[in-house]
């Protein structure tokens, strides 16, 4: 995922920029965690993971991660497995295409 005109998303906060590599690597781990939780119908893990995504995404300059986090929380509360599966796909796609500077 890139910003407007295909440019990489610029992380304005210098502290977030310093930590962004580890942050994105942890989000890739979240995909595995969310997938396993969905297989186990562990909606609480999905809710907590979504909650943390919501809290951290925009702080790191990645608002879309916050929006997805909020959607994960809502879907987990509703125990909506198809929606969670769709959101996992959206998060995976976002992280795969993401370029930051």
């Amino acid at each position: 995922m890139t910003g407007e005109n295909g440019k990489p998303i610029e992380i304005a906060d210098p502290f977030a920029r310093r930590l962004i590599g580890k942050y994105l690597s942890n989000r890739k781990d979240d995909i595995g965690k969310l997938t396993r939780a969905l297989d186990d119908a562990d909606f609480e893990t999905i809710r907590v993971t979504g909650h943390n995504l919501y809290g951290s995404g925009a702080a790191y300059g990645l608002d879309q991660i916050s929006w997805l986090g909020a959607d994960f929380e809502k879907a987990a509360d509703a125990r909506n497995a198809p929606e969670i599966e769709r959101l996992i796909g959206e998060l995976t796609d976002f992280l795969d295409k993401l370029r930051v500077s």
Partner: protein
Amino acid sequence: MRVAILEDDPDQAELIRLWLTHAEHSVDCHADAASFLRAVRRDSFDLYVLDWVLPDLSGIDVLKKLRREMGDYTPAIIVTAKDEEQSIVRGLEAGADDYLVKPVRQAELVARVSAVLRRSVGNKPEEQDLDAEPYSLSFTNKTVSLNGEKLNLTNREFELALFFFRNIGKMMSRNHLLEAIWGIENKSVSTRTVDTHVSRLRKKLNLGKENGWILSAIYQHGYRIERVDA
């Protein structure tokens, strides 16, 4: 200032730690309530930053425990994704001094932390003189007087006296005293130095029942100055 953070998400905790460290605060992060409560029992801080949703106790439960069971009124900011009016009211009623909705941004968090810390010292400038009968502390002259008579203190002893009288009734850990008086970067000074200076200060100020103040050692933790009946 010394800030203790309770935040279970390591990515958020690390970012907040960097922000506050850059703003020249000393930061101690904890991922669960049990570890946080252990830390605040053995150490002292100027401010707490508490997440609400945690794996063990909630941030609100921690705040209630601090205020109602431990008598700890260190200023606290709740930082949470819960943005409904009811939650904000609940947080403030539980004893929070401020409430910040996630996702947080650096400038706002640092500004809120500064504002709460300013309020916690009653908006008094750091340089203001202080009266604690029968003692009076003059920041301008760096002197302490007892019943109007000037006492002979070194600069360091004056700083220490001022720090204690600005934190009446609060346990101040040795590490907190080291950071506040000797400076956070000063690695050459040990907590033994704190003990020596406190002991000397106690004698020079003649602290005791006769002057209405005691400076107690809290075993393995630190020191607390309190008013007592003369």
